[in-house]
């Protein structure tokens, strides 16, 4: 799960990580009031779940409250398009108004999972303000990594090493050690999957500040993080994905016109791949899970067929726990109830497959069946092309 920068900064503040003073605003007049209160030059930052905001015009400097109001007016309501947003952009509904910090140095600090070592890794670099993947590619020697087991924690010597790698000395080094330890503590306590401060800045008056902050969370741990769940901003999710998440369905919208419904993540990805190999484009990833109920199948079908780009539906199910007759029942019910006229190609295999096939054949609905994945994909792609 992702949250906004202003929410991430509130959490960091809770853990003793210094962030610039500021508040979130939803209207230009609120932005003016915050700027007035801060009484300094301010930065107005668009709050969307995507990076690359500065280049896209989502971050503006303002010298006084008048300028702050004007900047907020320009940013609020705009559709921000960055390399990390969908092509149509994301509507900006909130801005963060912060005191502008005079920067003398931009650094990088993060905590994340190291999958290879099955442990946490803290990364520090003097090359802040640019993407860490880029730093890793161009100048890998500029990144120091310290690995820490969650049970043992990050040791003080490791935090010192990281702060030295940031080039910090004297009091700033001490501040860096504390900040690193606090960031690590935050990562564990809030079940993060990424805690990134980029840039971490040294100000001209000698303070260490998290100028930007990104916290992502482990979806599997949300059950014990109610305060994080409460920060979910549903406006940042596409409506169909939001709808699917309410029914426990894994759905990712894509740009093609062949709607896919599959059980299991691997088979769902493989089905997308074979649609592409057959000359078509998948409209979505959709995993209905191993033990989907008739209700889930009905909702899955409703969601994928309400994507207006979809011209044909491909259902590929390998019934293990999910029986083929139950699948057939759910699909027939959904098509009848929703009045769907899209052509549907069904390929199923596994438990009770004969019964399921008979139910589909006798339903009198617009179903074509296929014996193999390859045949199913070819049929669905041809139907999608014909229906364009």
């Amino acid at each position: 799960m992702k949250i906004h920068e202003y929410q991430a900064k509130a959490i960091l503040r809770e853990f003793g990580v210094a962030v610039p003073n500021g508040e979130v605003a939803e209207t230009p007049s609120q932005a003016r009031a915050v700027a007035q209160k801060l009484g300094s030059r301010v930065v107005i930052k668009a709050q969307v779940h995507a990076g690359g905001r500065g280049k896209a015009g989502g971050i503006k400097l303002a010298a006084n409250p008048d300028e702050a109001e004007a900047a907020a007016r320009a940013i609020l309501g705009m559709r921000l398009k960055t390399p990390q947003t969908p092509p149509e952009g994301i509507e900006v509904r909130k801005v963060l108004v912060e005191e502008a910090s005079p920067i003398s140095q931009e650094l990088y600090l993060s905590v994340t999972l190291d999958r290879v070592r099955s442990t946490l890794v803290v990364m520090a670099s003097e090359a802040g303000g640019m993407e860490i993947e880029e730093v890793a590619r161009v100048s890998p020697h500029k990144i120091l990594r310290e690995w820490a087991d969650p049970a043992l924690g990050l040791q003080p010597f490791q935090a010192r090493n990281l702060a030295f790698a940031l080039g910090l000395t004297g009091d700033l080094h001490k501040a860096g050690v504390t900040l690193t330890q606090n960031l690590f503590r935050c990562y564990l306590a809030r079940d993060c999957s990424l805690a990134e401060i980029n840039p971490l800045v040294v100000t001209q008056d000698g303070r260490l500040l998290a100028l930007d902050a990104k916290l992502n969370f482990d979806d599997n741990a949300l059950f014990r993080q109610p305060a994080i769940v409460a920060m979910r901003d549903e406006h940042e999710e596409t409506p169909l994905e939001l709808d699917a998440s309410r029914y426990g369905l894994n759905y990712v919208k894509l740009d093609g016109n062949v709607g896919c419904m599959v059980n299991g993540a691997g088979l769902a990805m493989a089905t997308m791949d074979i649609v592409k190999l057959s000359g078509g484009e998948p409209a979505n990833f959709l995993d209905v899970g191993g033990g989907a109920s008739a209700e889930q199948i009905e909702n899955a079908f409703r969601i994928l067929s309400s994507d207006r780009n979809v011209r044909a539906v491909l259902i590929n199910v390998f019934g293990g726990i999910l029986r083929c007759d139950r699948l057939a029942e759910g699909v027939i019910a959904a098509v009848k109830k929703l009045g769907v006229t899209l052509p549907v190609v069904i390929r199923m295999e596994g438990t009770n497959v004969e019964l399921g096939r008979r139910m589909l054949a006798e339903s009198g609905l617009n179903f074509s069946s296929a014996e193999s994945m390859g045949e199913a994909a070819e049929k669905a792609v041809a139907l999608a092309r014909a229906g364009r």
Partner: protein
Amino acid sequence: MSVLIDKATRVLVQGITGREGSFHAQRCREYGTQVVGGVTPGKGGTTHEGFPVWNTVADAVQAEGPNCALIFVPPVAAADAVMEATAAAIPFIVCVTEGIPTVDMMRAKAFLKDRSCRLIGPNCPGLISPGKAKVGIMPGHIHREGHVGLVSRSGTLTYEVVHQLTQRGIGQSTCVGIGGDPIIGTSFVDVLRLFQADPDTRLIVLIGEIGGTAEEEAAEHITRHITKPVVGFICGQTAPPGRRMGHAGAIIAGGKGTAAEKMAALGAAGVTLVKSPAEIGSTVARVLQR
């Protein structure tokens, strides 16, 4: 022969009175696996569907001496269940549970370290040695005894591949689902090593997916240590970057973990790559005839 499990495997099911645990304990027993019973804290001393139930793994070990634990405990307590089985000196643990918090799994894996215990999963279908034993949730009837070793991060995609093999009369020695989470107990490399040493496995099928670098590590190992033919497929060739595709571990992050990179690495290691998931069975048949 087979790897990891056979007719001598004695399985203890943790979470046996839950819906999934109960259902699959019975399916495993029907397949012919020796299921000695199960554990549900608080229900010790009762029986469930003919299985004895104990309060703790330690009690079950004392009574029946199982050499394998199969875990269906819900995500909130599954990592704890893994550690309980480890502490009771069960040498082989299969965790099916999906949705375990990453930090919990890191702790469990640290707990396992330096103990002579192997964990498969979590978030996996388990494993099967056709005709001998099934320790997992896969439909048993689609398998056939034979000489192809299969290792995969996926569940239903594995069933699909098994189906393609069996349809062509190609049997399997053992099929291992290692799981779709970012932190898992047994890697591709571990299973490749076992298949290489198993005289009954003549060809290895490796099914990978986007995210992480497990396939790249497998490729490196294949180059150096695997002399048996390997057929490989990577799913997620059309997956967009930055989006989690169902499995917690299936995500292209920071431009890394793409299907293209993985296929390039496996190809360079001499693996016969299959582009279309519909052609895995026919490719295996072709390679076997060489």
